[in-house]
């Protein structure tokens, strides 16, 4: 249960697939155009409810409540062995031609 004033993320469908009239590849044409934003919840609600939020600039935006206390979890990625090989090669190149600093 999210409380009024909580920072949340909402989702909405801007255009249903059948409403999309722009020149689009077939794969995109088959999808809804979806939208997300964040804001302060204007009334108590639970996940999946249709809600209103006040965004960072003070706009009122409607949508489905999909996340309470949203956060980012993008990262530096998993180990990529190819990069270690490149780094080793570059250090060897430098050892051969001599650093110039």
């Amino acid at each position, binding site marked *: 249960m999210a409380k009024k004033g909580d920072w949340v993320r909402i989702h909405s469908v801007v255009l249903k697939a059948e409403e999309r009239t722009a020149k689009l*590849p077939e794969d*995109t044409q088959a999808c809804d155009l*979806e939208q997300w934003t964040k804001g302060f919840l204007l009334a108590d609600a639970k996940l999946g409810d249709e809600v209103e939020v006040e965004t960072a600039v003070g706009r009122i935006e409607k949508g489905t409540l999909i996340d309470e206390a949203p956060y*980012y979890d993008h990262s530096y*990625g998993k180990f990529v062995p190819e990069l270690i*090989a490149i780094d080793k090669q570059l250090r060897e*190149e430098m050892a051969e031609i001599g650093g110039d600093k």
Partner: protein
Amino acid sequence: MALAKDYASVMGRSNDIQKDALGLDYAEFETSPIAFDYEKLMTSTGYTLEEVNRIQSQYGVGNTPLLEARNITKLARKYAKPGYGARIFIKDEAANASGSFKDRRAACAVYHAKKLGYKGVMAATSGNYGAAVASQAAIQGLKCIIVQECYDSKGVGQPEIVEKARKCEALGAEVVQLTVGPELFYSFLSILEDTGYFNASLYSPFGIAGIDTLGYEIVQQCREKLGKDPDMVVCTTAGGGMVTGTARGVRKAGCDAQVVSASIDLSGLSMASDVDFNKKSCTTGHTGFGVPYATDPDHSDVPRSAARPLRYMDRYVTITQGEVMYMTEMLAQLEGIERGPAGQTALAAAFSLAQELPEDNILVVSETEYTGAGKHVQPQLDFAKQNGIDVRIGDPKEEVPGKSVVLPASPALFKYKEADVDHFRASLIKKAVKKAGVKPTESDLEFLAEETKKDVDFVKSVLEKEGLL
């Protein structure tokens, strides 16, 4: 009565919304169905180079260091014939307030918005420009909304774009995120209409005027440091603003250096495809933006784009994703500066281009960008692997965009590909005439010659072949 906000109604009001949101009526620059007065549009900003410099200095932008990449130069010389391998310099644009050259565009656009009395600014961008507008809005005290194309239909976002969203929010902006598709413009216009904010378009004359200082600084710094002008300036090219503004600044400084556009080759991938969206292992600086914007600059979010790359570029070269990723590692390992991959497109091309220039030549790469979680070689390659892309070490010539990322097995394998600029020029000429649907006049032919940095005879020969003259 409230205005209808459905797709057709909002798009139908597009011209009026844009006019209100730019404080600029593009109709006054139109001279015929084909031509418009480009220089009049550019001077309509009323901002001289000195004025732009003053604004940028006040807001944490510009006067970035010009770094000599001594070790990268040394390595390039190892693979060049004797006496060849130009000195490579890098303009460290990551030193700007929000970490990229886009601050130059944003500083002027936000300044202009504030001067005209707008309460907020908006920009449609998935790239560094969002962070730049958010940063300048914070500094100059305006509200800011960034609209970005971020996710595919499964809700999976490009790590680089997700990072940009985080950064925009960290700088106080609201971020509206969308799935793939050009109808982003509808959401953008609709919010623009509701809020009455300024359209801080990437392609406004205010934005492009902001880049002139970059080219000017490059020449000034070369003269101060080296006592001579650069021989070649290489610009990463997507929407074309970088190459347009940099070349304008270089020329304003009285320098005739060759200006080279460089893009990552993403041929074969559709930019509007939901499936292809996450098969890209880079989100900008690629041909998916570079070629369409060069050959049809006016399909952006303003009626006439101030970024007109074919007016300025001398050459257009491409490079692969694998070469750019490798170069990002090279910059960190050999020069001790860790920067984001997108800014390295020009540097990867420069490594190869420098090998064809004599040792006493000066080659300048016009930018770097900030790096961080998501916006870094490792998460981008990890993401590529998760999306079924074959990441391997080998010959970059074998890379197939959307299928593989081939990291060069040796620095010897870096080799740019020369694109046929005359082909792009012919494409621009044909599109411009077909779009207008009229027979070009003599002054239209002259306009198209200026648009493509060619003469009237070239324009005529293109149109004659198509039966458009």
